[in-house]
């Protein structure tokens, strides 16, 4: 079984003006497509072939750098496309809203903590909202690492993530990463985030 690049559930133009179509297309077909192909190549003939991506990433400390980097890239981008949606979907509600209030006090406080993590991650990486010991927390990871990995500083199940590699925003925002992070909040699919919290 090899991993497949998922189709996006919306058009490349759908997230404009916050994320432009050219960024979307290169990000999806070239970057995500590259991680997917490289992951499949790196897995061929290895003991990890046929395992689920979650299972592979949980053993990040024991797998080759090629599998860790490309496997992380494959998983992280899957999650990123899933939690985005044109126009965004309302605001967090129900169980998700309760969990956010319990952990951060308010949605505004979550946004502030998450934005800080995204803006201050030095170099390439991701910022996350994750379930850690039955509590929601914010963290960030370098390169294509993520909270599922045994090597992550803060481990848990990611339910929201932002790609802060420069390739995610450079054509639109160049050096202005904070503007990209601010725009990101207009695109969140909170129903999907709530689903990840439950599922």
């Amino acid at each position, binding site marked *: 079984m090899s991993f497949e690049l998922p189709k996006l559930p919306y058009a490349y133009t759908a997230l404009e003006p916050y994320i432009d179509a050219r960024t979307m297309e*290169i990000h999806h077909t*070239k*970057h995500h497509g*590259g991680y997917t192909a490289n992951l499949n190549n790196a897995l061929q003939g290895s003991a990890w072939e046929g395992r689920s991506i979650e299972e592979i990433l949980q053993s990040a400390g024991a797998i080759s*750098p090629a599998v860790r*980097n490309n496997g992380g890239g494959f998983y992280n981008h899957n999650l990123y496309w899933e939690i985005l949606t044109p126009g965004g979907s309302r605001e967090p509600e129900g169980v998700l809203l309760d969990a956010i209030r319990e952990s951060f006090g308010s949605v505004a406080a979550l946004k502030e903590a998450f934005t800080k993590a995204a803006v201050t991650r*030095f*170099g*390439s*990486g991701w910022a996350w909202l994750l379930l850690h010991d039955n509590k929601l927390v914010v963290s960030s990871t*370098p*390169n*294509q690492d993520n909270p599922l990995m045994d090597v992550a500083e803060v481990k848990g199940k990611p339910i929201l993530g932002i790609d802060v*590699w*420069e*390739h995610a925003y*450079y*054509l639109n925002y*160049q*050096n202005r990463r904070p503007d990209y992070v601010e725009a990101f909040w207009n695109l969140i699919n909170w129903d999907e985030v709530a689903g990840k919290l439950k599922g």
Partner: protein
Amino acid sequence: MAFSLPALPYAMDALEPYISAATLGFHHGKHHQAYVNNVNNLIQGTPFEQATLEEIILKSDGGIFNNGAQVFNHTFYFEQFSPEGCREPKGALKEAIERDFGSTEEFTAQFNKAAATLFGSGWAWLVINPEGKLEIVQTSNAGCPLRDGKKPLLTCDVWEHAYYLDKQNLRPRYIEDFWKVIDWKIISERYDTLIK
């Protein structure tokens, strides 16, 4: 001691079509400038307030290291280009490259591989190691070979901001064009100064 942004030794469009004026404008005017501003702010009231960049690179950590090393790395990077320069190694440096890599072609192949395969943000370097031999090294993020006692001669910035406007995901094409603006006269002068 406050650091300042060194002016580019050539016009913003001088390296076109290999490195565009837009890329240089952001890279120098925004990224390099931000590292200068950040390190100047961060060292205030710390033991590094009067330090040189080299001292910061050797002894600091966290934000001071990241921003200080990036000031050094970018200055070192921008100063090695020229629109009309010597495009092949010559003299003592050429001999050292042939001694330690076999040939210029072999050196170039190894350097290209190091630059293309550094995962994430970082730098590829040609350095003189403490034994006096030439070596190719990769550093992540703000990493600088001075920290490991190695003397840099040449560097390729492979943060995506160095090439994304011009080449997007095609880092190998950026590396190929990088050689077209490297001035080996400048690299040779660095080598001659360091081995004296």
